[in-house]
């Protein structure tokens, strides 16, 4: 089922180590983080009050929302603080190609159907349909 697409976003060097940057792509605001050994991407707004996650402090593989310090796992998109919080943000698979960060988006047609990127998804490992078989770090 090929209803996803890898999009070239920006050179990795545009995202400083342990920081995030926001991009608008295909009508979505996505926050991309450079964790040194990998790049992770989630929907850009905190499920609490819509804080810009790309501006948060990164702690391990979690980002802390700059508005009220909610913590969002960049791996799973789930809220880790406050605890036992059902809210979450969508996550996006990423990979690297010649120093450029790519993220995987649903095709426009697929977006109207069930969204495969909503919370709970944990398939972070790049699979065979990625242009580059594994992250190049």
């Amino acid at each position, binding site marked *: 089922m090929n209803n996803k697409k890898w999009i070239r976003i920006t050179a990795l060097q545009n995202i400083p180590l342990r920081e995030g940057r926001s991009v608008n792509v*295909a009508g979505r605001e996505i926050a991309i983080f450079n964790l040194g050994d990998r790049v992770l991407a989630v929907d850009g707004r905190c499920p609490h009050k819509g804080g810009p996650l790309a501006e948060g402090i990164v702690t391990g593989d979690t980002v802390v929302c700059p508005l009220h310090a909610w913590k969002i796992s960049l791996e799973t998109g789930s809220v880790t603080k406050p605890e036992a919080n059902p809210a979450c943000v969508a996550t996006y698979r990423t990979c690297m190609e010649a120093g450029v960060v790519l993220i995987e988006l649903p095709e426009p047609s697929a977006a109207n159907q069930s969204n495969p990127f909503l919370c709970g998804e944990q398939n972070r490992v790049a699979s065979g349909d990625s242009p580059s078989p594994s992250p190049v770090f």
Partner: protein
Amino acid sequence: MTMEKLVVVGNGMAGVACVEQILKHAPKFEITIFGDETHVNYNRILLSSVLAGEKAADEIRLNSLEWYQSHGIELRLGVRITDVDAERKTVTGDDSSVTSFDKLLIATGSTPLIPPMEGTKKEGVFVFRNLDDTRVLLDRAAPGKKAVVIGGGLLGLEAARGLQVQGCDVTVVHLMDTLMERQLDLTGGGYLKAKMECLGVKVLLERNATAILGNGKAAGVAFKDGSGVEADFVVIAAGIRPNVELGRKAGLQVNRGIVVNDFMETSDPDVFAVGECVEHNGTCYGLVAPLFEQGKVLAATITGNRGPVYSGTIQAAKLKIMGVDVFSAGNFSEKVPGTDAVRYEDPALGVYKKLTVRDGKLAGVILVGDTSDSHRYMDWLRASTDLTAMRRQLLFPGPADDAGLDVAAMADSKVICGCNGVTKGTIIQAIHEKGINTLAQLKDCTRASTGCGSCTVVCQQLLKAVAPEFQEEAKKNLCKCVPFPEDKLREILRSQRLRSVQEVLEIYGNGVGCEVCKPALSYMVDMLWCGDHDEDRSARFINDRVHANIQKDGTFSVVPRIRGGVTSARELRRIADVAEKYKVPMVKITGSQRIDLLGVKKADLPQIWADLGMPSGQAYTKGVRMVKTCVGTDFCRFGVQDSTKAGIELERRLENMYTPHKLKMGAVGCPRNCAEATVKDIGIIGQEGSWQVVVGGAAGKKVRKADLLITVESTEEALQAATLFFQYYRENANFLERTYDFVERKGIETVRRETVYAPLAIQQGLRERLRKSKRISRDAWLEGDAPRHPTQFVQIEPLEKVQA
């Protein structure tokens, strides 16, 4: 039961401490104490604090007259015992009195050693040994007087500093090539010399004083090399000599001191000796700790409970000069075969530490500039702790391994406070019986920890273990990621020269950090290295990455600096132009006499800053916000000081600096206080002919009237006092601790003592570090033109366009 007669010669710390121990046994003696001084027993080791004006003479009293009375002790003050007849068991006083005894206790201490030189009998030549000497010196000391102290040991240096605090121009003359050579090696002595000189005490080494010059009255000191130094008076502190004459007259075996065995017995079964006048195992002690240990053993022996033995004391010395931390214990010589010396030194900070390790155990320790770990080392020395497994943490405890001494395992009889001879048992008893919960109460009740203060940690541990409602002066760890209190962390970062947040996290933390510790550590490295650190923006809150205040919708607010709230038509016009050009949704006058442009996009920030042409007002950060001013003398009918100008100058001197929390200031030209200086972190309040400098005020979540730091005459002095407190707050407050909490935690008295009333060198240190930080600091908005990172303010556009 008939009581035996015990005569004690010597009413000093050793004799009385021993009597206190004897009283703990079953009553056996009628006690008479002779003292040649006219004072009740006082704490001799605090004489230097009296000289330095830190304590009053009556504050160092150890036993009151009532104490002697209540124990039925006959006290004979001002009587010097000049003779002993061991056969007939009598002592003779210089008042011709003859007193008989069954048992005699000699506790005559020691007298100052006067080195052979000419003219020591001249007027104006003093020693520094007892309370009367101290009073004479206090009387003699006056601003501008030239004082020469002969002897660069513990006592000489303390005397020198005391005289210098009294305003004298002091020179220390020392025979050896290094100060305190019995306690310090050459390097340590060098650090100490630098500290003393920094305080303003002159030090002359390798000078052999041969004569006191002057015609009947001291006018100078001549040295063997032909040189000399002028003096209005001279203090000889060249060591002590045990007072053994009575021992000789009693026919006891005497070497350098009166010889005693492990039971504290002399060669005569009815004559005992304790303290500085004795020699045990070839050693005469000149320090306080052995007195108590000896006294306890002697008390057992003399009361017929012979058993406990005295096996010598590890020599430990602490220099009691405020701001000059020196500690030495054990044998620091590296010459003994098989000795490893473990060293750490930092000339810039004046910190030198050396441990000598032999056979896997600590043999000696020297600490200069930082004696905070002295207890740990004393514990290792006393317990002969095997250090093999701790080899990597000798100079700095590893994380989570700072539990301190095991107070539970300590015997009740163990002396915790060496200065006052307070045992663990006494402390525990006081805690139980008097319901003590705080260190302050414990100090009042037992005197423990009121001397040099080096036992404070152990006292606190005892309180914690025993007191039902112990109120700790709470020391919270920064966070789980870096489990240390912030003051400890500052010390670690400084001593380990850690300059980046990530380094700290990797070495002392979990390697990851969080939103709590990262900004705190960012502040800490910036402050400690005066801006010369490795800045890591990822560890900063977003406001400090883009120098603007994030709003609820992710936009930012922009507040340019308007010093003292004074602006101009041109500035206002530029602000208005910016508001229109960038369609700023809200323009608001703030409570800080500034203008806030709210709802700005991140990408617009650099251009807005450029268009404004004004520096950052730091309204987004833990840093210097502003100085709110009133109109002072220019237009106001009531103003008596030019608060507007003073406020602008204060803001100029401190702007761009980061602080533990936001810092707001105020300057008012009269006590009407129109700019609310009394509820600011720092305020200066003009009055007729002077300024009050106040600190720790608040009118936010908490409302607090500021405390008076100092009142000074000139505007410059007011600014100096304010900036001194500013840097003190920067260096000593925990991150996110506002001045009102900080001042309350420290106590305004402490704040005063450590800032405006601190020794000059301490003040100079604060100023120098502030100067350095200020020099490196810059207007954060300059990054608009020269961003630290290419995408710092830039909205990233995807390389591929995709239709939504």
